């Protein structure tokens, strides 16, 4: 009976939905499939005669490979192929910005989990057992695991500037790459290089390594084509950047490497880099059969990049009245073994590393560094999440030093429209930092800490573990505000492509939107429909499957798709509309300027005429394909960091209320409140969903989420040991959305997804600090940080 389903042709189904224009709570076109269990995620794909591919990974964070013997694996019955770097026909290294990462290990492995060899077999367990029989002879080296040591920079002592011991490694072992261990050093220099101030606050901060922890594992299906090429169905964030890298590795032109987006089970940055993409294609081309790869959870922890851990030293100077005079910051991002997005992370951390404040004198050094730790790259809010913990902690410390209310201090120094950022950029759209904070303050607080006999344990830190009935529990309230650049910065040619078609189907005008923009759960497919309905005045809008048959949409990251692909869809719709109105002009007898499309009709308000769109179109198919760009940004000056680096900023603020069991160091977050300016909420329900989800990931980093790395080895690669918030960890959330239009953006919208991920964690940290009176300079906060044990 075993005739399973799910061939790629059925995945992902074309999605047609009705109802919902810009500004409505439109429902997802893929929603019915998702709740029926019928949506084809990348791990659900299945074909007759397909093989399963698995990866053999290095157990060592740093080693030289003397030899690889694949013979024992090939001898396992059911095994069809075993491949190593020798079998990579094209470029043997790849990377998003810098090609420095081997498709399969060359002579050196630089992190634990680096792919070394591949196996394809008829059953996944056969492939796994065969991979375990590959014999790799490693010459194990000492790993470089400290970012500052990797640069030969002095290790800080807590709160002291004086160099302690300069770690001198021999140049041979110290340099993990031929170009050295420095990926990028960004300098921001503004104002007086030697400023002085009445009040000075110095702090050192550390942020642990966070994981995206998307639920859908890295997976996909590669199908060899009759033309010697390959079709890859895969969960990803940017089909075309994948295609570019896959083509290079396979030595094939783009027309022979065709990608289609399979259902994506979350991304959060973790799918920006390649994972199984090239591997599955290599196995498929080698065996001539479809090959499916799907990581299990442990492999997933080794199979994608993480959020950069950061160590940061900040010095804030202010007048006695609380005006910021200067900020000096030194920031180290540990990029791990390969570059990935580290240059962009450094860009964000450096240019926005002092927060949404006006500061006349700024001196920032931001470093991205190679080590033998797991590679780090994109994760929601990158570069800003880490620095926000530091700059918002500093603002609280400065307020305490000044004897000033922490929100007052923030409002006093807040960025606003017309302000100049540390990189010399004038903020040319609304920046309601003060209003975000004031609105939070005005929200009612939750009830006091419950006490007495009728305490519900479920309301207590520790919950039903019955660790307290309220004794030793202290309440704290904390605030934080943050900002983040939207879309790609620093002169990147950031564009998207949209193809929009309007035609009559079954007597009704139907629009089809075709982009390559990855839907990863955020709801871009809904937004694409809403825009087409709004611009073309039709109800039925089909979202074409996402693939490389249309031009690049750019990455689903940096909160950019609604802005950039939304802008492209809007522009393509406008082009289609212009042609349709031209067709209608002679029929209606009115100039185009008097006509509009609404309710499936061509409407002339002056004439009171409404002509069915289907009649105007007849058999004509109107199709337009457009590339759309936001206004250009520019590279920053290498010595000063000055320049128009960012096209738009997103602003959000959080208030966190926590109860801390100070005896056991257990934290319960009681409530989170968020205010965010979204410019224009294209889909308010989805916007709130983004704010909820971003808040949860920020809370997770503040109190529980960390990949523990010891001597370059990951200690907790599982959901048993790497904890993400459950429904018991998440409190009720209040959300207020502001809509101050950005005049430069389509519909005035702002990118939404990342900002709430940035401000939530620092607010939680501030609340815990207020509850305990402890300085708390590291996240995630652990029980032992609170109890001192």
């Amino acid at each position, binding site marked *: 009976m075993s005739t*399973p389903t799910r061939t790629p042709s059925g995945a992902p189904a074309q999605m047609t939905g009705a109802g919902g224009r810009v500004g409505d709570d439109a429902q997802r076109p893929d929603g019915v499939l998702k709740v029926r269990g019928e949506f084809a995620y990348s791990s659900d794909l299945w074909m007759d005669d397909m093989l399963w591919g698995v990866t053999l990974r290095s157990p060592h964070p740093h080693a030289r490979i003397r030899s690889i013997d694949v013979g024992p694996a090939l001898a396992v019955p059911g095994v069809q192929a075993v491949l190593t770097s020798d079998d990579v026909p094209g470029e043997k290294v790849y990377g998003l910005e810098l090609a420095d990462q081997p498709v399969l290990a060359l002579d050196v492995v630089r992190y634990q989990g680096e792919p070394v060899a591949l196996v394809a077999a008829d059953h996944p367990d056969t492939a796994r057992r065969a991979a375990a029989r590959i014999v790799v002879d490693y010459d194990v080296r000492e790993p470089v695991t400290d970012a500052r040591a990797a640069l030969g920079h002095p290790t800080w002592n807590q709160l002291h500037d004086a160099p302690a011991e300069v770690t001198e490694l021999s140049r041979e072992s110290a340099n993990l790459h031929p170009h050295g261990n420095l990926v990028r050093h960004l300098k921001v220099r503004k104002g007086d290089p030697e400023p002085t101030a009445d009040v000075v606050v110095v702090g050192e901060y550390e942020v642990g390594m966070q994981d995206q922890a998307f639920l859908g594992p890295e997976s996909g299906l590669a199908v060899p084509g009759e033309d010697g090429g390959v079709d890859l169905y895969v969960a990803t964030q940017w089909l075309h950047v994948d295609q570019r890298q896959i083509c290079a590795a396979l030595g094939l032109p783009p027309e022979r490497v065709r990608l289609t987006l399979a259902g994506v089970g979350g991304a959060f940055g973790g799918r920006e880099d390649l994972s199984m993409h090239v591997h599955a294609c290599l196995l498929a081309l080698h065996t001539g059969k479809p090959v499916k790869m799907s990581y299990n959870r442990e492999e997933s922890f080794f199979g994608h990049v993480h959020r950069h851990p950061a160590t940061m030293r900040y010095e804030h100077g202010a007048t006695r009245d609380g005006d910021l005079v200067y900020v000096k910051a030194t920031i180290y991002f540990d990029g791990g073994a390969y570059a990935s997005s580290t240059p962009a992370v450094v860009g964000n951390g450096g240019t926005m590393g002092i927060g949404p404040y006006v500061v006349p004198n700024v001196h920032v050094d931001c470093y991205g560094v190679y080590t033998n730790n797991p590679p780090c790259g994109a994760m929601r809010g990158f570069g800003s999440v880490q620095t926000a913990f530091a700059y918002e902690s500093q603002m609280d410390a400065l307020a305490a030093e000044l004897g000033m209310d922490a929100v007052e201090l923030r409002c006093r120094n807040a960025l606003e429209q017309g302000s100049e950022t540390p990189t010399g950029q004038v903020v040319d759209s609304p920046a309601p930092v003060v209003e975000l904070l004031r609105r939070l303050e005005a929200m009612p607080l939750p009830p006091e800490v419950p006490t007495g006999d009728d305490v519900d344990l479920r309301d207590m830190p520790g919950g039903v573990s019955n660790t307290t009935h309220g004794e030793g529990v202290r309440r704290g309230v904390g605030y934080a505000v943050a900002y983040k650049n939207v879309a790609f910065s620093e002169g990147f040619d950031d564009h998207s492509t949209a193809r929009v078609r309007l035609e009559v189907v079954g007597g009704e005008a139907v629009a089809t939107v075709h982009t390559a923009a990855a839907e990863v759960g955020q709801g871009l497919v809904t937004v694409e429909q809403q825009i087409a309905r709004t611009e073309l005045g039709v109800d039925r809008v089909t979202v074409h499957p996402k693939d490389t048959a249309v031009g690049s949409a750019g990455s689903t990251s940096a909160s950019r798709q609604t802005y950039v692909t939304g802008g492209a869809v809007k522009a393509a719709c406008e082009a289609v509309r212009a042609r349709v109105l031209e067709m209608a002009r002679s029929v209606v007898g009115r100039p185009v300027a008097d006509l509009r499309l609404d309710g499936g009709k061509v409407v002339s308000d002056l004439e009171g005429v409404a002509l069915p769109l289907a009649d105007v179109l007849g058999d004509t198919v109107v199709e337009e394909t457009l590339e759309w760009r936001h206004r250009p940004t520019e590279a920053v000056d290498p010595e000063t960091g000055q320049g128009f680096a960012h096209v738009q900023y997103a602003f959000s603020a959080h208030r966190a209320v926590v109860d801390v069991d100070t005896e056991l160091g257990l934290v319960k977050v009681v409530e989170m409140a968020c205010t965010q300016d979204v410019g224009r909420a294209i889909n308010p329900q989805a916007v709130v969903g983004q704010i909820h989800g971003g808040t949860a990931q920020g809370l997770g980093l503040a109190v529980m989420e960390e990949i523990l790395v010891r001597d370059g080895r990951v200690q907790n690669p599982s*959901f048993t040991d790497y904890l993400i918030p459950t429904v018991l960890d998440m409190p009720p959330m209040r959300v207020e959305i502001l809509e101050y239009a950005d005049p430069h953006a389509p519909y005035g919208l702002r990118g939404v997804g990342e900002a709430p991920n940035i401000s939530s964690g620092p607010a939680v940290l501030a609340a815990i600090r207020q509850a305990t009176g402890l300085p708390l300079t590291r996240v995630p906060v652990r029980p032992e940080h609170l109890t001192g044990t």
Partner: protein
Amino acid sequence: MRLSCTVNGTPQQVDDVWEGESLLYVLRERMGLPGSKNACEQGECGSCTVYLDGLPVCACLVAAGQAQGREVGTVEGLTPAGAGSGELHPVQQAFLEAGAVQCGFCTPGLLVATDDLLTRSRAEGRKPADAEIREALAGNLCRCTGYEKILDAVRLAADRMAAGPTTEAAR
């Protein structure tokens, strides 16, 4: 080995099952029912929650052989039998309307867990309080939503199921 069991009310029989395979693997890879998701294979995330003889379990932790002769209910079985393409179980409908579905990978497991909770509380003639909903869903991880809209969806479904006819779809 050969495995025989009932899935969503239909007798199923599959051959050549390797003894090391889980119920989840057999459902997904041998029976053509990939609705139950594989996200951790450790019983931590709840994405593979199915009914086994009417009780919710993580299908990844059930050896295929343990399902021999038993009744399995999956997310695919929640959809009312013979339903058209738009017809949904009240829990499915509520998740859609409330915005509780983003990437949707956790959704199948959450739907089964919610159906279990609401079927139990309905049998007791009541609607679950928030604290009870949170406890019931604590074994289902979601990375996208922060759970707020999932709670909205469960409350909405509870209201509707209290008002509407009994559904005994999956169990």
